[in-house]
């Protein structure tokens, strides 16, 4: 019974490939997501996942239906949007949310227009992805993204953390805060492109952001939050794929819904800052 429920689905090659791709995304994305949340840039990640669509469409237009061409186009478009978002943030003194909403609407509309004008691309496939159709190329793309993003983040970890906490200090000691921010954004764009291959551009940050948002209910310090986010993302991947297999719903939404369910559960019952933690009677020391 348990075997049929949990193990048997992964006897299929397409399920194993999907799982391997999602594990790669779960290892690379959530640590970046935790830092996006702490840097108050959650909205930027949303803009990025729409921002890559025109690049993917142009990649498909000029490079045929090769995933590498689409991924490369998406990466360049994502970088451009990241630079634009950063510039808007500075130009508006941190009140960039309305401008970012404008950027992502234009990017989404532009991407859809280009895709529709191009023969042979399935718009739904780009928007919603198809985890279960992950072929060796897509798997290579996701694994490659994870292999760059995770060590890359480890390299820029210290200056990035210090820049997030006290940007003025980094500037004062000549720490080139802007360069670390750019490197960080490049890694985020990389992960968004990797996510697109499986989850589509509408949900590519699902495995990156939802576990990261949920992580603050599990740990106070940064390392703990990163560990919690990765664990939640891995759990979402496995449970989401099983849900998709048994309930016969598309795998992308199933994974993101599972991650959303885990976030809701964390919000309600997690050990920190959750509803349950707030209702629990607080013990305190005497005097």
């Amino acid at each position, binding site marked *: 019974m348990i075997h049929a429920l949990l193990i048997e689905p992964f006897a299929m090659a397409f399920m194993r490939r999907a799982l391997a791709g999602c594990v790669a995304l779960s290892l690379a994305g959530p640590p970046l997501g935790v830092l996006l949340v702490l840097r108050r840039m959650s909205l930027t990640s949303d803009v990025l996942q729409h921002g890559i669509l025109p690049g993917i469409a142009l990649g498909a237009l000029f490079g045929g239906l090769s995933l590498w061409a689409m991924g490369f186009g998406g990466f360049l478009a994502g970088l451009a949007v990241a630079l634009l978002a950063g510039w808007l943030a500075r130009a508006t003194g941190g009140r960039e949310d309305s401008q970012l909403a404008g950027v992502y609407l234009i990017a989404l509309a532009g991407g859809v227009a280009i895709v529709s004008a191009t023969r042979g691309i399935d718009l739904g496939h780009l928007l919603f992805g198809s985890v279960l159709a992950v072929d060796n190329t897509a798997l290579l793309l996701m694994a490659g993204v994870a292999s760059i993003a995770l060590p890359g983040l480890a390299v820029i970890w210290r200056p990035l*953390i*210090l820049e997030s906490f006290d940007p003025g*200090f980094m500037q*004062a*000691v000549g*720490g080139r805060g802007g360069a670390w921010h750019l490197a960080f954004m490049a890694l985020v764009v990389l992960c968004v492109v990797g996510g697109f291959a499986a989850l589509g551009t509408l949900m590519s940050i699902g495995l990156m952001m939802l576990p990261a948002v949920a992580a603050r209910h599990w740990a106070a310090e940064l390392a703990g939050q990163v560990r919690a986010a990765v664990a939640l993302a891995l759990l979402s991947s496995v449970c989401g794929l099983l849900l998709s297999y048994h309930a016969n719903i598309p795998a992308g939404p199933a994974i993101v819904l599972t991650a959303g369910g885990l976030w809701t559960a964390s919000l309600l019952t997690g050990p920190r800052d959750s509803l349950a933690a707030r209702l629990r009677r607080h013990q305190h020391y005497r005097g």
Partner: protein
Amino acid sequence: MTPPAITLTDLTCLHAGRPAVHHLSGRFAPGSLTAVVGPNGAGKSTLLRAIAGLHTATEGRIDRGGLARQDIALLPQAGALDRAFPIACADVVASGALARIGPFRAVPPATRAAVEAALAAVGLSGFARRLVGTLSAGQFQRVMFARLMLQDAPVLLLDEPTAAVDARTAADLLAIIQGWHGEGRTVVAVLHDLDLVARAFPETLLLARDPVAWGPTAVAFTPETRLRARLVAEAWAEQPEICTQAAA
């Protein structure tokens, strides 16, 4: 440790299009301990940021006597930082040594020991792994002082170091400042506590956009200069005239 003098020549810095520091000339002598006093909006923070190289001078010059960036340490105003960020006290203090360690190298044991010592010196032994978000305002300011110790800079610029802390903490922090002065470092501190200035700071710069007085505290800081400073700072014209004072 005797740093070179820091010399301002006809310095003007703009803030939102209006002069925050206006035609200021003078010299912070090597090893001097100067209080910068003046009403809110008088350009005190802008002056410190300009000396630290974080604010570009519109006119005039700052001669830092060949000091490198990391030789000038700046304590920003409390509240300028994101204290909700989950970072431990020891890591904040260790970041003071960033210019020496660099962004990638492991923190050497000597620096770890120095972090412990600095935390002990500010009265926060045992706080190493505490997150800064759990600290009180006074404790947080102590951590910032420990970071300054790790920076080990010959010139220290302190923006309201004793604002929003209790009397005990203020006294402890003042003792640290006087210790730095005793070691021959140049210290410039923005302060609002006038009794403290009169008591503990040999030099005073009274600023109200325009420099009002600069010299030994007893000379620069009289009831007459204080009144002048208040009048200048409060005069906020809707349509100010263009300044025609020639750059020296």
